[in-house]
């Protein structure tokens, strides 16, 4: 701890930011316990590629990303500058300055702006989890529909969470296209997709989805696709409370349902035909 006290700036970060980050459960900072050795290599924020492992209520959740304290400090204060300066090097520099670091310490983040984007995504995901775990979010969604919390179906919960996550992007709506462009760069695609999958997975798990067969994959794919396309729509949505985006999401869920029904129908029909053929063959005395 004495090392931390020495390396970290004395000033207390913006209280508003503290509020907004309080529940970022998906993130963690590395606690440096041993005496520090001089490090020559850059420390890339590590991402667990195997996002989801054995989870138990009796064991703590493993963090998906790990940042060092300085990285967290810089990124946290840089987020405050994102609405005005975008996910840019300027925001990072201003954030570093705010946190009491030299401008050059931006180099602690080897991926640069992309690290800022990832931090944004991961922390918003953590916030979403926090909102659900406090219990207020589903109650609000249920109240909007005029239902009791327990009457909400998994589908409605997924829809509500997805919209809630989109609304979290409101403040960065104008700069989000740049972020999307950054994420679609070839080198950044794997991490972006990992994060997208993590979000879809979190949304489904929090909604109480308990698929244990191939639908596990199709559901995550569907939620990811809907979220990714809704994000693009959101950047061009002029309405104040993302009404158009909400309508878009609603339509996509209808589409998904229609498609799923069709596929299930075809599968049932094929299964029925197959079983009939087998049964007919057996009744004729074929050894099948």
């Amino acid at each position, binding site marked *: 701890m004495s090392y931390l006290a020495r390396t970290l700036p004395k000033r*207390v970060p913006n209280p508003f930011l*503290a509020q907004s980050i309080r529940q970022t459960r998906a993130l963690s900072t590395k606690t440096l316990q041993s005496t520090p050795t001089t490090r020559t290599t850059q420390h890339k924020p590590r991402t667990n590629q195997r996002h*989801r492992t054995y*989870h138990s209520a009796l*064991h703590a959740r493993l963090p998906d990303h790990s940042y060092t304290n300085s990285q967290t*400090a810089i990124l946290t204060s840089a987020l405050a500058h994102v609405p005005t300066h975008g996910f840019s090097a300027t925001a990072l520099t201003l954030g570093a300055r705010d946190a009491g670091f030299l401008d050059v310490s931006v180099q602690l983040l080897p991926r640069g702006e992309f690290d800022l984007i990832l931090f944004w995504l991961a922390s918003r995901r953590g916030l979403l989890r926090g909102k659900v775990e406090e219990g207020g979010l589903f109650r609000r969604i249920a109240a909007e529909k005029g239902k009791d919390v327990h009457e909400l179906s998994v589908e409605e919960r997924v829809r509500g969470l997805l919209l809630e996550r989109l609304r979290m992007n409101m403040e960065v709506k104008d700069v989000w296209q740049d972020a999307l462009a950054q994420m679609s760069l070839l080198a950044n695609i794997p991490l972006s997709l990992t994060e997208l999958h993590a979000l879809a997975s979190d949304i489904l798990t929090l909604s109480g989805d308990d*698929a*244990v067969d191939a639908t596990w994959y199709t559901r995550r794919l569907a939620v990811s696709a809907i979220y990714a396309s809704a994000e693009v729509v959101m950047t061009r949505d002029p309405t104040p409370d993302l009404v158009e985006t909400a309508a878009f999401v609603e339509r996509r869920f209808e589409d998904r349902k229609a498609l799923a029904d069709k596929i299930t129908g075809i599968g049932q029909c094929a299964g029925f035909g197959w079983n009939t053929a087998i049964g007919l063959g057996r009744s004729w005395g074929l050894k099948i």
Partner: protein
Amino acid sequence: MLPLPILRRCALSHCRHPAPATTPIFLDFLVPSTSKHGQCRQASTTAGTSGGSKPLYVLSKEQREFMDSALRVNQAGELAATLIYKAQTPQIVRSYPHLRPLMKHMYDQEAGHLKTFNHLIAKHQIRPTAMYPAWEVAATFLGWSTAALGREAAMACTEAVETEIGSHYNDQVREILSWEADAERRGEELDEELKEMLATFRRIRDEELEHLDHAVANDSKEAKPYDPLVDVIRLGCRTAIKISEKI
């Protein structure tokens, strides 16, 4: 009496204030209280168990990954076993009606195991195997084709599969027992879920080996090309286990 609360408040506020000032605030909220467990095992003492006396054994990342792949493989294995018996039953029962109760008994047990693992997979948020549809087709084909070869071949298939599955469960039980020994050495204890899972694995292993005995009792050794058949099926099982562990 009046100054007492004031005094206390002063003392309290005095105590409370310096603490946050010395520790940087963002550390408090960015390190989730939960993630500190990994760094220091002692922090997890008395994490709300019924036993209460001993601290809880904290699973490392490797151990979690082991549980992750173990449960995934077990679910896939039970799915395959269920489908094999389901595909075998009509043909076997048609030629040998006296085997109906045995086939039903084995199928029911496998269906029970599958239900257990489906529940565990959902509870522990484990990704099911991506080969799910492939295993469904493969297992049905295996069951159907061995039954078409006759009762002995079908029983030889059961023997091969249950041998592999039985030893696989045995490995898992051994691994969890080694954790238990490790916990013992540290003066900690496994959590309730793991203990329960250990008991479940043992019970299921014994039931699988019981199926093996039934198969041998029903002339599995009489299958005509015995060695090639059993070897191929066992190799297939091992490959499927390896694949399901990863994806």
